[in-house]
């Protein structure tokens, strides 16, 4: 594999996609209108837990404009939605996989569970008709809190999951951990709740499903992060349709953050119904539906213990986590609080032994699955909060306790399965401390104290595992899918290029970053490269975008396809230049006979490939179109240090962020502007979790109390500061780009950094810990109870 050098690499090229977004010419799913289109509306359960005794749809069916009303009774032969990762319990039994019906069958299990699909000529007619459906519910007691759900006597949600338990899973050497604790000089203990979040991409989920009678085929437009996986799961596992008879298009997608990875019930029901009504069906979620039915994130309850020697060196970490999976297993739900969480518990540290046990179960809430960071923010929060507390208890400065435990030799095998290939943790900490002006903190703190305010500084040195990872390893851990990526480089006769990628952009800027790689490698203008993604009808295959994998995995697949294009070009050039293939060099868009001035431009070679008059037809096929699959040999390990400085008003409990500084190591960077943007966005979501956001269900009724943007506090422009960001580079050792991934880092580091800053600020008034978010109410309460 050739190195990627110079050209557009490392340049903040302005984005190719911006022109359409800025002029209103973007094509999001709800912007798609098909001829003769109908509108779908889902009647949802008003109860958290109830048996369905009967459904009468007769009045709705007779309502004006109504074409059809479907319930579970109509969906004969349609399977439930599958889960893509099998977790095996410590006792060797497989996780419990209760059915996840496309429309509720006999029972509803959370508020918002879809009960019926109404299809009408207009959206209002569909909504009006849904009001006429009579559902006879037998309301059952509900449980929304995972700790409550696992207690004896809790309401039983699925017959297939006794005691509401899905699995108890563990990783690490328990005996070795217990032995290390027995000889520890100091033990720090902490109880943590990782608050439940609602992803809230600003574009609500939407779909347009249509059936083509002439071809007996389906087309689905859907706001989704991985259309090929959507198609595979829907056709092969749920609807029993031939995969090649369905095209899934995820056009412009207005943010995902994980919530659009999954196969959802709505689009599945619509595809099924489109053949019955023989007209296209459109549905776009209202925001209130998004709150009720999008997969949520986080929702862990954890007890953690860290054993240290007298110098603050970590000896062992022991963690017990209970994870809420919601009412049903969403597509990747089971691997988030296990494979993507507990394997990260070494963080940046040499902790020799770690043991983590995770119990996951069902509640009467929306399903919980990956949300930006997916397991890794939860792991970072556990490690960095307990390290902060240990430093505070042992009077070791926060930078010092981290430095005493940093991993400095690579590759490094952690006690929780991961093999870190490279990293430079001191460099990130140093740089973050510099841009945060840590040296000036004491003076700023003293100045704030004069005004009656409490200042605090919080650190988080996080690591994440991205670019998920060798398919065979993932398979042995329970993955039911491969984890490679596909890329295709189609060179047209005149030398312009269309790139097809299985990665999907929903804000990340692939159309620009990938074009920079291709233009640089082929030595052609960036305007001559277009990137196509998000369409199973045009892209050969793909696993989509999640887990910060697009550049490291999807980008590498494109690099491999480029290698093939250049190798073939070299053969063609050798023939045309009457030289040996081994003498042909390719540089700056030219194939040259080494040591001579005889050369052919890239465009001359592509033209010859399609007009093969002077061409090695006996050994080389015409055409210049290459594809490649890339299956990584390891995860990538982005890491960094985030430092947050806060000022707390002890009278009101208001926390103000004075500054937020981040130094991250993402490996090599193609477009610094885009990378910084990803960091800013991640930090804002992490700050949202720590300061504002919390999804709350009523304990008695199971109703969602934070069901709108008026009740659930998303960060707004005046809640966050401008950020100070920097990068430090250790290139990934096992992909040709040296890239690690940057999409989730901000959301991973920020919550711990911010909460550590709050605890630092409140240490003088005796507060040690309370759970996120650090709302004025919680801060004030913590101060009052500490004073008592």
């Amino acid at each position, binding site marked *: 594999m050739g190195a990627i050098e110079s050209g557009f690499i490392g340049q903040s090229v302005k984005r190719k996609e911006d022109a359409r977004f800025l002029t209103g010419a973007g094509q999001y799913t709800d912007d798609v209108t098909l001829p003769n289109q109908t509108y779908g509306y889902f009647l949802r359960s008003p109860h958290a837990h109830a048996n369905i005794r009967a459904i009468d749809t007769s009045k709705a069916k007779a309502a004006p404009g109504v074409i059809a009303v479907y319930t579970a009774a109509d969906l004969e032969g349609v399977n439930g939605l599958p889960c893509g990762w099998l977790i095996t319990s410590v006792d060797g039994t497989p996780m419990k996989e209760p059915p996840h019906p496309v429309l509720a069958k006999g029972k509803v299990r959370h508020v918002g569970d879809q009960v019926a699909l109404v299809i009408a000529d207009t959206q209002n007619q569909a909504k009006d008709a849904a009001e006429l459906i009579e559902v006879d519910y037998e309301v059952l007691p509900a449980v929304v809190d995972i700790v409550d759900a696992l207690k004896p006597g809790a309401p039983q949600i699925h017959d297939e999951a006794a005691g509401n338990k899905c699995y108890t899973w563990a990783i690490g050497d328990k005996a070795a951990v217990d032995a290390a604790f027995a000889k520890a000089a100091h033990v720090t203990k902490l109880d943590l709740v990782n608050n439940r979040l609602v992803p809230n991409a600003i574009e609500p989920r939407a779909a347009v499903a249509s059936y083509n009678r002439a071809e007996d085929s389906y087309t689905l437009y859907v706001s989704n992060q991985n259309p090929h996986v959507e198609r595979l799961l829907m056709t092969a596992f749920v609807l029993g349709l031939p995969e090649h008879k369905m095209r899934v298009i995820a056009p412009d997608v207005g943010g995902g953050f994980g919530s659009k990875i999954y196969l959802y019930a709505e689009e599945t029901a619509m595809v099924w119904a489109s053949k019955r009504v023989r007209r296209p069906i459109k549905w776009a979620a209202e925001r209130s539906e998004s709150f009720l039915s999008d997969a949520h994130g986080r929702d862990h309850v954890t007890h953690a213990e860290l054993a240290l020697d007298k110098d603050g060196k970590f000896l062992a970490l022991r963690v017990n986590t209970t994870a809420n999976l919601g009412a049903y297993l969403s597509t990747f739900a089971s691997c988030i609080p296990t494979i993507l969480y507990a394997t990260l518990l070494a963080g940046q540290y040499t902790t020799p032994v770690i043991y983590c046990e995770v119990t996951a179960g069902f509640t009467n809430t929306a399903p919980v699955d990956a949300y930006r960071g997916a397991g890794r923010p939860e792991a970072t929060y556990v490690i960095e909060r307990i390290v902060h507390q240990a430093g505070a208890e042992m009077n070791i400065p926060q930078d010092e306790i981290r430095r005493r435990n940093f991993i400095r030799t690579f590759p490094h095998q952690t006690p929780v399965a991961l093999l870190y290939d490279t990293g430079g943790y001191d460099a990130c900490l140093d740089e973050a401390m510099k841009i945060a002006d840590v040296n000036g903190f004491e003076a700023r703190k003293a100045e704030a104290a004069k005004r009656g305010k409490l200042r605090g500084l919080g650190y988080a040195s996080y690591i994440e595992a991205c670019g998920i990872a060798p398919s065979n390893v993932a398979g042995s851990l329970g993955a039911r899918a491969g984890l490679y990526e596909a890329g295709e480089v189609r060179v047209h006769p005149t030398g312009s290029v269309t790139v097809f990628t299985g990665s999907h952009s929903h804000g990340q800027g692939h159309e620009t970053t990938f074009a920079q790689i291709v233009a640089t490698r082929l030595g052609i203008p960036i305007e001559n490269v277009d990137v196509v993604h998000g369409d199973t009808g045009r892209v050969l295959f793909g696993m989509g975008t999640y887990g910060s994998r697009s550049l490291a995995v999807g980008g590498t697949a494109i690099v491999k396809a480029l290698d093939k294009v250049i190798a073939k070009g070299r053969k063609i050039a050798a023939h045309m230049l009457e030289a040996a293939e081994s003498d042909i060099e390719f540089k700056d868009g030219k194939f040259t006979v080494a040591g001579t001035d005889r050369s052919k431009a890239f465009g001359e070679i592509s033209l010859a490939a399609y007009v093969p008059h002077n061409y090695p037809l006996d050994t080389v096929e015409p055409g210049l179109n290459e594809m490649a699959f890339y299956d990584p040999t390891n995860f990538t390990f982005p890491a960094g240090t985030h430092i947050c400085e806060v000022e707390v008003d002890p009278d009101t409990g208001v926390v103000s962020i004075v500054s937020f500084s981040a130094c991250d190591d993402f490996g090599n960077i193609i477009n610094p502007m885009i990378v910084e943007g990803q960091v800013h966005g991640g930090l804002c979501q992490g700050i949202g979790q720590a300061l504002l956001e919390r999804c709350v269900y009523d304990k008695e009724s199971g109703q969602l109390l934070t069901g*709108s943007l008026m009740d659930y506090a998303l960060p707004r422009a005046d809640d966050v500061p401008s950020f100070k960001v920097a990068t430090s580079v250790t290139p990934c050792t096992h992909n040709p780009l040296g890239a690690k991934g940057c999409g989730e880092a901000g959301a991973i580091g920020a919550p711990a950094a911010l909460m550590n800053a709050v605890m630092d600020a409140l240490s003088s008034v005796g507060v040690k810990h309370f759970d996120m978010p650090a709302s004025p109410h919680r801060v004030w309460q913590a101060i009052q109870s500490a004073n008592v």
Partner: protein
Amino acid sequence: MAIPLALTVNGKTVRADIDPRTLLADFLRTTLGLTGTHIGCDTAQCGACTIHVDGRAVKACNVLALQAQGANVVTIEGIAATDGTMHPMQAAFKECHGLQCGFCTTGMVMSAIDLVARHPHADEKTIREALEGNLCRCTGYHNIVKAVQQGAAAMAK
């Protein structure tokens, strides 16, 4: 029962008979095909549907189309020059990477233009407060604030 509606949209007179409960955002998107005005929430919280009505920024998801009877409406599709040159605020968003997924962007740009009309020399704090009605989940607002500052400077020229 359909009611006649007449208004100006992006400089053109538009007439239609509409269901009285039609929201202005839906009228623009569905009847006129101006899909640059996006709908992100039901509660006038996210601002993705922000347009200009008689020179003021308005959230089109919370206005009945009939309330715009006779009004002069401008949407994101109507702010670039006739030769396609982007409005200085659009150009500033591109230059500063003030957008990622693009969904909030159209409303954000319409709000930003209104903000600059009201506060031509706004500082960062004023800009952040004035953008409170527009949610972005991608950018963390950092580059949006920079874009508004740069756009304001360009609009002053």
